[in-house]
């Protein structure tokens, strides 16, 4: 060994091997807690962000005011987007894709089994623009419908399954659709179309059943170039809300930011819980270092009396703390990778983000924090050792 003080520290750790290992176990637990929890939180964030980011280029336009609308000769209050507003949106959106959406929530029946879900009415030509079919085929109109994978699984819907939609009452004949395709899972979405748990019907079937022809509950604009998102929003707002707020215009970025903030807070919280274990480890290291100093008082007296500088004595004890930290950090780093992977796999079910820098960085970060905590715990014992009176230290037995 080049540095005799490091050598002395290594030998001291070896001499008190069991005690040193037990002290390092505290650091192992601390590093694992911080790294694994950090990785869990980050993987959660990355997973959600990825799901939301897939349709982050969508501008969502929803009605903002109650209007008096004439439907079937009767005047009723509605909160919808009408044809003229849709034309304004289409005009402002330019080359971007505009998707008018009808939406309601309704009971439905598969045979005698009752369920409830979202019913979306969409122009069949718009559906492939943002939804994918995993099984079967897209609807071409008529009474062919698509169902989301969650609703299909929950109600055993298959291709060709007949779904009666509406509230059953004596003598009433409920309108029905036939499943032509099952959609691919989308998970959490940010375009306000939660298709996994929905039935997607052709817009004509929808308006024939529920009314509201040329009146839409929502209009989505899929922006081709994400950089033009804000520009497109501004153009729509200028066009349609010029005389006061007629529609509310949102996009996924603000929602994404809110979710990120929430998950970030959650990650910080679980990291703080992990940090508590490091505090406990720090106390343990401090205790071991104090014991090491107390046991080696005479040795410290010898070192000081034959010309060892105070800084060199301090260095020797800080090396010892560093070695304990390094052992804990290395073992903790390995264990946190294994445990972190298992926890992420078990709790999120998706480990594709585990080795991304933002996630895996928690391992070296946790290791560095573990080592720093150890060195910090050794500061006072090292200072105490270096400031001993050599005469008193030599006299001690």
């Amino acid at each position, binding site marked *: 060994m080049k540095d*005799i003080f490091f050598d*002395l520290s290594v*030998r001291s750790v070896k001499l008190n091997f069991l005690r040193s290992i037990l002290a390092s176990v505290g650091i192992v637990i601390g590093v694992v807690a911080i790294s694994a929890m950090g990785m869990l939180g980050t993987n959660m964030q990355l997973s959600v962000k990825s799901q939301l980011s897939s349709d982050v280029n969508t501008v969502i336009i929803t009605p903002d005011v109650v209007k008096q609308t004439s439907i079937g000769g009767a005047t009723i209050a509605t909160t919808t987007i009408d044809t003229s507003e849709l034309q304004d949106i289409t005009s402002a959106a330019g080359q971007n894709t505009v998707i008018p959406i009808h939406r309601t929530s309704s009971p439905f029946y598969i045979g005698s089994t009752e369920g409830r879900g979202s019913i979306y009415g969409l122009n069949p030509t718009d559906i492939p623009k943002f939804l994918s079919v995993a099984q079967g085929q897209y609807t071409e109109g008529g009474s062919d419908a698509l169902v989301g994978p969650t609703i299909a699984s929950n109600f055993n819907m298959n291709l060709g399954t007949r779904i009666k939609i509406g509230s059953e009452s004596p003598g009433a004949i409920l309108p029905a659709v036939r499943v032509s395709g099952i959609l691919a899972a989308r998970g959490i979405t940010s375009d306000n179309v939660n298709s996994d748990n929905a039935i997607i019907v052709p817009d004509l079937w929808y308006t024939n059943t529920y009314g509201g022809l040329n009146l839409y509950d929502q209009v989505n604009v899929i922006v081709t170039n994400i950089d033009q998102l804000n520009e497109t929003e501004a153009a729509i707002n200028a066009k349609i809300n010029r005389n006061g707020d007629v529609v509310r215009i949102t996009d996924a970025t603000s929602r994404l930011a809110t979710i990120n903030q929430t998950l970030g807070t959650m990650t910080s919280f679980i990291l703080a819980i992990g940090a508590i274990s490091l505090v406990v480890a720090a106390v343990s290291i401090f205790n071991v270092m104090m014991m090491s100093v107390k046991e080696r008082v005479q040795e410290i007296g*010898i070192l000081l*009396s*034959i*010309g*060892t*500088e105070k800084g060199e004595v301090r260095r020797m004890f800080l090396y010892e703390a560093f070695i304990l930290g390094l052992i804990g950090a290395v073992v903790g780093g390995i264990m946190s990778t294994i445990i972190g992977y298992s926890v992420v796999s078990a709790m999120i079910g998706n480990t594709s983000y585990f080795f991304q820098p933002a996630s895996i960085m928690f391992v070296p970060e946790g290791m560095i924090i573990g080592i720093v905590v150890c060195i910090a715990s050794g500061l006072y014992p090292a200072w105490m050792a270096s400031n001993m009176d050599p005469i008193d230290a*030599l006299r001690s037995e």
Partner: protein
Amino acid sequence: MDPIEAEEAMTGSDESTESGMPLIRLSDVSKIYHLESGDFTALDHVSLDINEGEFVAIMGPSGSGKSTMMNQLGILDVPTTGKLYINGRDVATLTPLERTHMRRDVIGYIFQKFYLIPLLTAYENVEYPLILRYKKRDDTGKAAAVLKSVGFDEALSAHRPTQLSGGQQQRVAIARALVNEPKIILCDEPTGNLDSKTGKQIMDILCRLNGEGKTVILVTHDPKTAECARRTIHLADGRVVES
């Protein structure tokens, strides 16, 4: 100025002898300990000169101030009043770091209980002061040579202190004290923990070193051990009663 010259400038030089000042001068030195039971005067207005090349024995009964005197001479402590000059430097004016360097470079300490570093081998114990001084491991073979001069071969040098007899440990302690070629060798009851035969061997080594020009200061209560000394200082109640 190379590092060694810089160290010498810090820890003193041959100027002391050239200017006529002895290697060690105690001028009206007192050491008073402030205890709960009252002040205790361990050294009481002691004045003393020790020249380079002397072999001085300091004798006296228990509590006479021998250890306090050794602590002063070893720069482990400073006088309460009076002046202590070592190698031409007033110890009271030295910074703590300068005192540390003086202990390392000017003084070689040999203790009754050997006080070897238990975690190091015999060789490493001797090499240690060289590392302190030159901030690197000894690649000159000096540590091995000094060990050889006290009768240690390579195989024995690899042993830890606990694997050595008392006499062997004291030889290692002597080698450690000598390796930085100090001007002053302080011996605190060096044969106190040894049998008479081994004790005589140790004293022979110290006599030989004095013959080679080293200044040896020996604290002992044993008149036989003090026989080698050419001058004996008797202490009683912190005062020099005979010199």
